[in-house]
């Protein structure tokens, strides 16, 4: 495992419901049932990240990053402004864990989040390059948009993987 602590310090950390497009490293800390959706344009070393909380916006537009449907549209729109075309964009999906044991389904919204994001990506014709969803473990995500892009996922059980 290479030393990745330098990069993490400079990464912009996105809170619940936030989204951002840029060439700088992006990350989210402590991802549970939420989804980190990363759209990446290799040719422009450009990436967008959304910290998605719920599957459907049901008409709420004031916080696009919060919902799967509005987040995907907002990320694509912003990346197009930077010169990306939909055909050059690939996706990475991380998160959507079911955090609670002995719980009714209401707290375990992770599965629905993951399904909604994947469904919407398919409808937009964006291929998923890497996916790590479900399970019962919290994750932190860091992404470097440069070139092919580099993803680090740190899990609550202490394991850490670079892609």
């Amino acid at each position: 495992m290479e030393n990745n602590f330098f990069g993490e310090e400079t990464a912009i950390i996105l809170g619940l419901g936030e989204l951002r497009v840029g060439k700088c490293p992006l990350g989210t800390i402590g991802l549970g049932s939420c989804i980190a959706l990363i759209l990446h344009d290799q040719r422009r070393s450009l990436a967008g990240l959304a910290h998605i909380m719920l599957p459907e916006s049901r008409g709420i537009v004031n916080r696009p990053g919060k919902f799967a449907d509005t987040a995907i549209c907002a990320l694509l729109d912003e990346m197009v402004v930077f010169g990306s075309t939909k055909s050059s964009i690939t996706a990475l999906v991380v998160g959507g864990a079911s955090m609670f044991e002995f719980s009714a389904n209401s707290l375990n919204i992770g599965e629905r989040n993951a399904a909604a994001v994947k469904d919407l990506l398919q409808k937009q014709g964006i291929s998923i390059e890497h996916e790590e969803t479900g399970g019962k473990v919290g994750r932190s995500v860091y992404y470097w948009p440069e070139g092919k892009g580099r993803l680090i996922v740190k899990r609550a059980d202490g394991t850490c993987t670079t892609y």
Partner: protein
Amino acid sequence: MELDPFQKDALAEFGNIGAAHAATSLSEMLMSPIEMTVPEVRAIDIADLHKHISNEISAIVVFQIQGEVADGGYVVVSMPKETVIYLTNKMLGTTDIDREINEMDQSAAIEIGNIMISAFLDATAELLGIVMLPSPPALAIDMAHAAFESIIAQVASDVNDVLIFNTELTSEVPPVYGGIYMLPNTALTQQLFCMLEQLVEPLS
């Protein structure tokens, strides 16, 4: 959501009464004194949650508030792993502290949460003259922030800020540390404001 000084004071006092009863129940169980901080009440934007909730591996015990308030939100007890292991040892008379969380720890965490939160809700509901009951508990042993996300997703689907009450309970000997959080949903928040205003009316 902006809280005016009256609302902030009233909610802090409300949390104080609940937390004091929870601290007493924990203290009785451990047969040792427990310190508590004055409750903090904050309305925070969901995007800033990671500035308020740590990423430390903790046992998070969650209860939905039920009773005369329909699906009123959640109360949460959060304890670091070390505290849970200590409390299990104390209850079972075991001594091994350098180990992973096991099933007994999970049961212990839930039971401690149950006792503390029952006391918390009993006391606060009595103050308001209503009935508030905890749902059966749910448990996560994970990054605290990751567990809180699921709760926020339930209370903040339509709004972008949430009300968080937080009290910390500590004890040097035994080395125990824990936090009690309450996250009322929008309906319960409004109901709380109304009831607390009525409560002080005869004085004004």
